[in-house]
């Protein structure tokens, strides 16, 4: 709790971008709570959190990669294919855990491939993950999965519990989101690997000269992102009892990036924390939920999302103007 507060308040007393986004989120919440009946009810809040759980889980994985100055566009593809393959294997007669193990192995393989291409062949992550995402989708649809949709077999109740069950009255997707967020936060702020990822994202050359094993670290971050994608995939498949692989043609991966950037994780690496991901996901959840109740159409919702993103970044720039010298360095 103390760490969360310190993160929100920023180091120099000036509000951080996280705090700005948090304030906007609270303002939106109060606005909707006052103007919409039933918005602030427990039922609606749980529904709201549930609707952003998948997005939130994916964002924790993306955050790790982005803090290490990378980008993982293959995340949604890995999520869809690994989960769908798990379901297909279960339909083929395999029990839950072996099927999950194979699905996880597939996800990790794509993650390691991403990391290896970026670290050793030194291809920019944008292109590398774009390509591996398509490879993953192609291989999956061609060799692993029979149709566009994959369904869990009849009677797979333990599988359905992952997405539809409740623990102490809270739906499982929310629990998984909270566990993922807490775990990644702990990893980034308390472990040596976490420190190294921040170092990598801040200045790869300096980190390398310092003796950080940069390449294994890059591979780790992408493998971790794929792992999180697999978890998100299982949650998604279980909560709606199917996996629609067409999800990779949606804008989900950009929503994930939106959430990550919104809270103040910089695409230039080294800055931000999981607190900001949670705050960003909450803001998006509040906005979308409120607007859906208000019957705002999806185009207007998209516009609202982007306005919020730009506003948060502009306010942050105003409050934290860059020094001329460091500004120039970035341009070269």
């Amino acid at each position: 709790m103390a760490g969360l507060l310190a993160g929100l308040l920023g180091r120099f007393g000036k509000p951080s971008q996280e705090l700005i986004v948090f304030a906007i989120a609270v303002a939106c919440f109060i606005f909707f709570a006052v103007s919409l009946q039933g918005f602030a009810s427990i039922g609606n809040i749980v529904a709201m959190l549930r609707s952003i759980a998948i997005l939130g889980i994916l964002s924790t994985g993306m955050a790790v990669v982005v803090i290490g100055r990378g980008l993982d566009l293959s995340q949604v593809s890995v999520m869809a294919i690994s989960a769908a393959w798990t379901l297909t294997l279960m339909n083929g007669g395999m029990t839950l855990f072996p099927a999950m193990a194979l699905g996880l192995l597939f996800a990790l393989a794509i993650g390691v491939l991403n990391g290896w291409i970026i670290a050793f062949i030194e291809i920019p992550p944008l292109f590398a993950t774009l390509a591996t995402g398509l490879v993953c989708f192609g291989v999956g649809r061609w060799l692993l999965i029979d149709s566009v949709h994959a369904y869990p077999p009849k009677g797979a109740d333990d599988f359905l519990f992952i997405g539809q069950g409740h623990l102490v009255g809270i739906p499982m997707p929310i629990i998984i989101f909270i566990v993922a967020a807490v775990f990644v936060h702990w990893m980034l702020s308390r472990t040596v690997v976490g420190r190294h990822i921040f170092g990598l994202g801040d200045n790869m050359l300096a980190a390398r000269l310092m003796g950080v094993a940069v390449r294994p670290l890059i591979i780790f971050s992408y493998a971790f992102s794929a792992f999180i994608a697999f978890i998100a995939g299982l949650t998604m498949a279980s909560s709606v009892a199917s996996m629609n692989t067409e999800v990779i043609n949606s804008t989900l991966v950009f929503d994930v990036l939106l959430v990550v950037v919104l809270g103040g994780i910089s695409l230039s690496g080294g800055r931000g924390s999981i607190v900001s991901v949670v705050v960003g996901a909450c803001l998006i959840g509040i906005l979308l939920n409120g607007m859906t109740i208000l019957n705002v159409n999806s185009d207007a919702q998209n516009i609202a999302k982007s306005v919020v993103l730009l506003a948060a970044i502009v306010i942050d720039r105003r409050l934290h103007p860059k020094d001329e010298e460091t500004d120039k360095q970035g341009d070269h």
Partner: protein
Amino acid sequence: MNALANEADAPKPDASNIGEPLIKVIGATKIYGGVHAIEGVDFDLYPGEIHALAGENGAGKSTLCKALSGTIKLTSGTTMVDGVERHFDNPGESLAAGIAMVYQETSLVPSMSVAQNLRLGKEKFMNRMRGLYIEGQVMLQTLNFHVDPALSVATLGAAQRQMVEIARAVYHDARVIIFDEPTATLTPEEKQHFFDLVRDLKARGVSIVYVSHALEESLDISDRITVLRDGKHIITAPTSEMSREDLVRHMVGREEAQSHYQQRAKDGEIEGKSKKRRRVLTVENVTMGNMVKNMSFSAYEGEVAVMAGLVGSGRTEIAKIICGAYKRNLFHGGRIFLDGEAIRYRVPKQAIDDGIVYITEDRKIEGFLETMSIKDNIYLSWLASKLGRGFLISNGRRNELGTDMTKRLEVRAPSADVKVNELSGGNQQKVVVGKSLVQKPKVVIFDEPTRGVDVGSIPEIHQIIRNLADEGVTVIVISSYLPEVLTLADRILVARQGRVVEEFVGGQATEEEIMYAAVH
């Protein structure tokens, strides 16, 4: 505005040192992150004058030049051009007013041809190649430059690039050309050619601001000299009234600055020191591409070996090969021994595990992590070494290491929680050094340890280096600054074109001997 430009087109060769100054700067002040880079500096420049700026590293010469050329904005102070107050927000505006800057690192576009670079920023709507080349050729020939305008800039050497850059300034009708360390990368012959050119420009009525470390050059070529020290204006005087000793005294602000190494030599502290010592590092015939060719040398325990030489002589490259940042040739790449064992590192991590650290010359690019505090930088470095293998981080250890190291190296900062890029150059350098020392190395390679370091911190960094050697660490220092070479060295290695060509015992060599070995 137009009247100004027209006036600019007509050079005034007769108007030297009389009448109105072309540029007058009053009370120029620039603050970076709370530190004054320059403070209340006055400067003026008359038409057809060569005005040298002198001062040590970090005295504010470059800052003043950048302010004149519109690269940075002054925090306060006025700039008058032709008696009219002007504000330059970007280099384009000052170029339009006739002020051009020729940078240390040239600012040409490497993939374009010479002629295209000349016209860069002044293109017509349609540019015919043939017309462009003819125009370029005429331009270059009037300046007596022997460069083919059709060549791409990437294929040119440092001296030729500089010529193109000068031609570009002339092409843009510059009335004022600012040279920042123009001779640092030139050979003696090229330097002579360059001086002829500067005098030629002066004869055409161009005013020149000349910044150089080499005092002799400034004394030789300039009409007036301004000395800056610690960002403040010390004196402006006609060159004819200045001697080298005066200049040094004004720059350093004290007499004994140069006698430090002579003192050490007198004490007999240096001579014959290496003979009794254990050899730690041996470099044998190491080769890497064109940069390092058959380089061989050794370094001994408890000794400071200084490698002198020009930029591009393979010094940084060999250091990076030793520490694993670069790889030497796989075949016929030579051998490197640490304590008698052959080593070949793929990544710096392996070198650090073996106790070899490299402290970079380019601390802004690869020296420290700018989003992190002093403590975090030092702690992360410790974590990355053998000492810090573990899984969880410890805040106690972080504070302990950070505070210890800032105290030991006398880093001047409000606290160890301040971000590194808010410190002055010298304190940043100390943090970078501290980051490496916390890894408990056996061999430390310093690459230009005092580049861009404020004057006050230089002796402190020298002291840190001496102390390391006295503790029995093997120290290699790479330096282009001869007084520094002589101050620090137990042994001097001179590199030229990828080889170590000469070796001196510290205290027995003179600046002239070292320079001679470095260029011939």
